[in-house]
């Protein structure tokens, strides 16, 4: 800045406050509109929580904290406990993670570290497109393709080979925990791989060259410079995928078989927190049934919030750490 320009700028700035009102009126209006929108979003969320909370009070009053662990859910005798659904949500989500995490890591490492650029771009695009398919379509595919295949081929085979493990015992139904876990795995794989890919891409090349120059093979380089460096980022991606799996409703409701019982076998029908609400809300007639469904919803809401907060915290930590590494 030359002296003259600097002088002019400082004069304009000094002259500013006098005319500020008229000059920035547009800005101020805009600011207030945005502020109003932002506030109403927060209020809406608060109102929603409050409403859910009020709805679920009767259930917690009647069944107490035991509601969360009680295994009986019986609309006829009006005894309600969320145990089977919490079990269903946890097991189906963990099953989905067990399948999806290795696949997602493989996909994102392949796309980012091994594939030539053109192939990586096309494949990356296709994988991300998987995330755009509506979940009801996954559900339909689950019912018409996956479940019959599981019933006729996969489950008999698993039963024959691993039948000594309780997880793979019992009659093959097709629909059930295994089907839900598989559909969920397919649904969360694009999410986890996309985030992992971004995390890997944020690792500067000089980190990879550090290990290559030391005489690392490609695999050793991926381990030392990519996976190790991205540990917390990968964890964040996994937690976000877990959050998605736990909240997924439509597809799970369609393939899980909807039975409010805990069965150790993965072949057996089950039910999750989200699927029981979708399944029973329309026909719930009694006050206590409705309230119990709301209580299930509230529990799911709280758990999802916690999981998302955790993911954010973890991802934030990796961000600030790689920022430090790149000083």
């Amino acid at each position: 800045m030359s002296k003259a320009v600097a002088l002019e700028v400082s004069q304009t700035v000094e002259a500013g406050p006098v005319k500020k009102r008229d000059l920035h009126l547009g800005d101020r209006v805009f600011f207030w509109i945005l502020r109003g929108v932002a506030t109403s979003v927060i209020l809406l969320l608060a109102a929603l929580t409050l409403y859910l909370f009020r709805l679920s009070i009767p259930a917690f009053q009647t069944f107490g904290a035991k509601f969360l662990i009680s295994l009986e859910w019986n609309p006829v005798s009006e005894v309600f406990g969320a145990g089977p659904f919490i079990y269903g949500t946890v097991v189906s989500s963990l099953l989905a993670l067990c399948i999806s995490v290795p696949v997602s890591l493989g996909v994102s490492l392949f796309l980012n570290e091994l594939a030539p650029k053109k192939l990586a771009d096309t494949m990356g695009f296709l994988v991300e497109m998987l995330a755009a398919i509506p979940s009801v379509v996954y559900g339909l595919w689950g019912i018409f393709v996956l479940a019959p295949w599981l019933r006729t081929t996969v489950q008999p085979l698993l039963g024959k080979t691993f039948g000594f493990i309780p997880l793979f015992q019992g009659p093959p139904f097709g629909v059930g925990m295994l089907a839900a876990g598989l559909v969920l795995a397919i649904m969360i794989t694009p999410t986890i791989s996309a985030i992992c890919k971004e995390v890997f891409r944020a690792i500067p090349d000089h980190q990879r060259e550090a290990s290559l120059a030391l005489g690392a093979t490609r695999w050793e380089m991926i381990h030392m410079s990519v996976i190790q460096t991205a540990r917390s980022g990968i964890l964040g991606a996994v937690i976000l995928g877990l959050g998605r799996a736990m909240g997924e409703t439509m597809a799970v409701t369609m393939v899980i078989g909807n039975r409010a019982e805990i069965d150790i076998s993965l072949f057996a029908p089950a039910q999750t927190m989200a699927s029981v609400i979708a399944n029973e809300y329309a026909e719930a007639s009694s006050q206590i049934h409705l309230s119990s469904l709301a209580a299930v919803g509230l529990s799911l809401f709280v758990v999802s919030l916690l999981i998302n907060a955790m993911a954010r915290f973890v991802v934030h930590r990796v961000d600030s750490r790689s920022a430090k590494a790149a000083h």
Partner: protein
Amino acid sequence: MANPILETKEVSAWFGKHQAVRGISFSAEPNTINAMIGPSGCGKSTFLRCLNRLHEEVEGARVEGSVLLSKEDIYGQGVDPVAVRRRIGMVFQKPNPFPSMSVFDNVAAGLRLAGIHKRSVLAEVVERSLVQAALWEEVKDKLKQPGTSLSGGQQQRLCIARALAVNPPVLLMDEPTSALDPISTAKIEELLVNLKNDVTIVIVTHNMQQAARISDQTCFFLTGELVEAGETSRIFTNPQDTRTEQYITGRFG
């Protein structure tokens, strides 16, 4: 040039169709510091990365010619680039310790890659390398802290220690002090002169004074070619090529 430890013959390198290095023949005597100078973009880094076969890791990159390390062609048939990189150390422009590893593990990384896991051996070599890199006194109580918690100059010396740990006969350095403050730079320059006893150093530098201060041989690069190479004092006092003269007198570049 009686018994060079490192010798290149007509080395050319490409990025796709773009030729960045044009037929460079060069040799380095044992226990010397060899400086590469030249305007930016003239192919110094690319040439350096041909010397440990790192260039070919770039997608679409290609190398021709031969590089002899103790008379053996590292581009010869059946030579494993990974094995080559284990024998030649490299230090980069930006300090790049492994962020997930402690100071100790950073220095031990090359040894572990080579299959050495015995704690007592690692501890001994880590200490020796850190002493060699003039860092031991500063970090001996911080061996378990992350490598990235050190200052920039310390991180760069940590990277030097990491490269030295596997006892390489040759150490390649790509503008190792350009991201550092003058005090850290001076420390590293002093360190390099001392290191000469153990390794042969090929250093790319942007800083002609640095080349003049520490190197035995200076090579001047221009648009991918080696214009002139020779004893440092001779290059700076009596360059044969007018382009070299123009560059060192600051008339271009």
